[in-house]
């Protein structure tokens, strides 16, 4: 008998339960209740976000597959396609950092290879609390080890990413994992159950009791009770996934299957339901045939388990034995557990006895959609108020620069990325230390660039502008290596949608992203939404992270951020404004998260990016680096010190008249620092003028010091030492 307590424990409201009864025309049984609870969870149903997500542009010249499949797909020429997606694994990673992060990587890899693509590069976007918080070191070490432990063992390089620290994430970290694969355009597979009578085949690891209700857990806020949810976190086995990857790719060389999908959140249930939904069919499963890791599992547990490294596929009838043979070669289970039916009913049997019978539509298109109340946070006006006259100008900006380079948000992330294999598959042309990673594609001229960006602080201060800036920065990072954007995948990490302020932030971020995507011409092809990122009623900064993929017509023409040779001219594309709102400087030096984020004009942004791209394509750019956290002085310092060889100095003269701190550390958008040979300066100026981008020569590479007017006169070796050790030093202090 289903009591109101049982219903509530499944995360379903009374109203939702009544809707279930209406849809079924009867009370559900316990197993069916479990199925509804995961399929209607925020994580699987997008019930609060759906109406907003439709606002995002999803079409473009290169788009082959937009949102709605396991991953998005864009055309990259020569009959090839890039298949990519980013997904969050925030809740599990906070509860159990190593396994949570590891299975996040495992899940996103499956989303990509299930479409017929060989995964060739991963990124990740991480947010942790302040180093003052006792758990930060533990969480950081665990997450990084988990990402490495899974990604390294499966042989997919982690070529880039970002890490950001702020108190806002003290009790709710973010782990967003991205993978890109390459497929032949003609050999793309989808998660569809078609062909009545076709067998449904289960492949991969056996099913255990791990991860039951993971999707529901991911759809709730944290409290002190969260520690007790550790058993809902799955345990990863990268070895089995590696076998599964190779076996699936072998299978996909054949014509034996009609559809395939990974078992991710909500396991067997969501994979089979979604495949039936997309196929316009029903499925019938015999749960007694599912390979089990332990005896005595109930149908409820089998349907809801989130055991990892499992896939569901629909084969052509009569080809079952051939499918099995391929998996046997890799020592994997492949078992027929059901068939495709015509009646659009989701039916599960257990040893011949029916345990669930639900119309597919009731779990998918009929799932609730909420237009939740929205309200602009009352505190926002006060937060946005920033009178620069009340901010004391630092007596010594050189010291402020050193403080910024030491900030864990700006300091080198080598401690993190050296734990990731970023080279395997021998395609990595530019690895994790640049604005964007660049990989080659063997056998063709073009290359791909990948980046992931997002600034929660900006979104907290103005979610609309923050949404714009996240997309703009990602595109600018691609431009800085010489790549034009093809598409993006996003993870939208927010607090509880039941909080009107959070829903307002969400809607504003989407509008901002939308406007930036339209002007910059970047379609959204995949992504996910992660709500309920809050603990004890305090939401995180609204944090959209944007993973963008771009193409370089000739991979050898890529550009890196660091200065190349003494005598080169340093040029600023874009314009510096007197603004400090939301900056890393304001946070680090003055302890403030305040003001409005930097102003942006998307047409100017586009002009600056196009100027940079054109100059790179003409082959005259020696280095290019986006100006972001820490402003111009930090960007210039990074150009001097962030390269793989001996640091190079520079003499810089800035003409703008404004406060020194705003000039050096303000985070004005739409700026790229480039360097060119002296004889190419006029050419660069012409290109910038044609594109309508502001351009000015601001100095020259050379010497052993970074000097900016009389304000900064520092040996680059000293700057490098501070920047190189900022993060590692804090980890060792713990």
């Amino acid at each position: 008998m289903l009591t109101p307590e049982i219903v509530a424990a499944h995360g379903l409201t009374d109203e939702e339960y009544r809707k279930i009864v209406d849809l079924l025309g009867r009370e559900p049984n316990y197993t069916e209740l479990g199925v509804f609870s995961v399929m209607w969870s925020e994580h699987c149903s997008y019930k609060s976000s759906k109406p907003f997500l439709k606002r995002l542009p999803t079409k473009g010249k290169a788009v082959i597959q937009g949102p709605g499949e396991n991953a998005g797909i864009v055309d990259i020429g020569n009959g090839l396609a890039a298949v990519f997606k980013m997904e969050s694994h925030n809740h599990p990673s906070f509860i159990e950092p190593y396994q949570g992060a590891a299975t996040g990587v495992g899940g996103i890899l499956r989303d990509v290879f299930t479409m017929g693509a060989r995964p060739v590069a991963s990124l990740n976007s991480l947010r942790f609390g302040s180093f003052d918080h006792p758990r930060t070191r533990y969480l950081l070490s665990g997450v990084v080890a988990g990402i490495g432990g899974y990604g390294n063992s499966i042989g997919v390089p982690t070529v880039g990413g970002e890490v950001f620290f702020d108190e806002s994430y003290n009790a709710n970290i973010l782990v967003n994992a991205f993978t890109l694969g390459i497929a032949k355009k003609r050999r793309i597979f989808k998660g569809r159950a078609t062909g009545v009578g076709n067998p449904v085949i289960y492949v991969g690891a056996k099913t255990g009791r791990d991860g039951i209700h993971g999707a529901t857990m991911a759809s709730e806020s944290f409290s002190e009770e969260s520690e007790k949810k550790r058993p809902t976190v799955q345990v990863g086995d990268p070895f089995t996934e590696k076998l599964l990857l190779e076996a699936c790719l072998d299978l996909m060389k054949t014509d034996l299957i009609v559809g395939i999908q990974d078992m991710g959140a909500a396991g067997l249930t969501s994979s089979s339901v979604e495949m039936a939904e997309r196929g316009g069919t029903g499925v019938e499963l015999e749960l007694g045939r599912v390979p089990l890791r332990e005896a005595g599992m109930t149908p409820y547990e089998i349907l809801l388990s989130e055991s990892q490294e499992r896939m569901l596929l629909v084969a052509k009838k009569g080809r079952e034995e051939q499918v099995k043979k391929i998996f046997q070669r890799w020592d994997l289970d492949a078992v027929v557990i059901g068939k495709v039916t015509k009646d659009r009913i989701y039916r599960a049997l257990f040893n011949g006895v029916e345990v669930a019978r639900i119309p597919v539509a009731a779990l998918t298109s009929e799932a609730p959609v909420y237009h939740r109340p929205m309200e602009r946070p009352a505190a926002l006006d006060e937060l946005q108020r920033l009178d620069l006259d009340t901010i004391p100008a630092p007596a010594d900006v050189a010291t402020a620069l050193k403080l910024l380079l030491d900030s864990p948000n700006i300091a080198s992330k080598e401690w993190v990325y050296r734990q990731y294999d970023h080279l395997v598959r021998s395609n990595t042309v530019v690895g994790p230390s640049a604005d964007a990673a660049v990989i080659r594609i063997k056998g063709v001229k073009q290359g791909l660039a990948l980046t992931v960006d997002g600034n929660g602080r900006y979104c907290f201060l103005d979610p609309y502008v923050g949404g714009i800036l996240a997309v703009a920065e990602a595109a600018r990072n691609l431009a800085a290596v010489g790549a034009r954007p093809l598409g993006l995948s996003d993870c939208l990490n927010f607090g509880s949608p039941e909080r009107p302020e959070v829903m307002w932030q969400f809607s504003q971020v989407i509008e901002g992203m939308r406007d930036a995507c339209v002007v910059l011409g970047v379609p959204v092809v995949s992504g996910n939404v992660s709500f309920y990122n809050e603990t004890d009623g305090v939401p995180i900064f609204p944090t959209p992270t944007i993973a963008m993929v771009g193409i370089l017509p000739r991979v050898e023409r890529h550009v890196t951020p660091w200065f190349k040779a003494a005598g080169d001219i340093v040029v600023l594309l874009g314009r510096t404004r007197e603004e400090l709102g939301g900056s890393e400087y304001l946070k680090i030096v003055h302890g403030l998260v305040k003001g409005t984020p930097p102003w942006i004009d998307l047409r100017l942004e586009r002009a600056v990016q196009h100027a940079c791209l054109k100059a790179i394509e003409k082959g005259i750019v020696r280095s290019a680096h986006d100006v972001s956290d820490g402003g111009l002085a930090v960007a210039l310092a990074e150009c001097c010190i962030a390269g793989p060889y001996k640091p190079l100095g520079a003499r810089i003269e800035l003409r703008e008249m404004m406060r020194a701190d705003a000039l050096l550390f303000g985070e004005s958008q739409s700026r790229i620092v480039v360097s060119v040979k002296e004889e190419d300066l006029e050419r660069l100026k012409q290109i910038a003028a044609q594109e309508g981008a502001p351009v000015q020569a601001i100095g020259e590479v050379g010497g052993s010091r970074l000097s900016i007017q009389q304000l900064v006169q520092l040996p680059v070796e000293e700057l490098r030492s501070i920047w190189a050790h900022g993060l590692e030093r804090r980890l060792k202090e713990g």
Partner: protein
Amino acid sequence: MRWGVIVFPGSCDDHDVYDCLKRVLKQKVEFLWHKDRLNRNIDCVVLPGGFSYGDYLRCGAMGRFSPIMQDVVEFAGRGGLVLGTCNGFQTLCEAGLLPGALVRNASLQFVCRPVHLRVEETDTPFTSAAKKGQLLKLPVKHGEGCYYADDVLLKRLQKNRQVLLRYVDAKGRPVPGANPNGSIDNIAGVCNEGRNVFGLMPHPEDACEKILGSDDGLKIFSSIIAACGKGEKKAWAG
């Protein structure tokens, strides 16, 4: 000559070696499935990097029991050339084809970064294209690459000149800071007494083209090609 690259379940760098040999060096190369027998036409067998059988036990401890390894042991016994990089090196140590052992990095962390290596000996089929004392820049990427040998073995390795590569700094000095994993005596690669089996932790296959940052890895492969060209293969052609 013909190359064979073994594919263990969990091999990751098999594709990298294959691609380097086939596309960059235009060699005849084939994948060898770990459950199969070793094809007798093969001149050099490569055990690639990766995580054979997941390496949930000691690295390479399971890999050495793959069916093909029996043939590899016999092939090496006949003087056949065997190259093991990273997980391949670990597997060769586990199989007893190379002396010593590889244990957890001193840092207890996986490490992926470029290192400088000094070529210590050149009278082997794996290093003949290099000059003695020459520096190579290759990447390492491993969690268990700390080479261990006891004093007796260490002396024997030195006496027989079996240490082929050492981790050094950019100036060629084998200082502790240049050692990415705590290997004893900064040892990065060793050969057997017969000098036909070579294992190294760095990855030459990931440094064979300038666009990847270094092509120093070619020194290793071109040494092997030169050795086979000279007809040294007669020694083991059965």
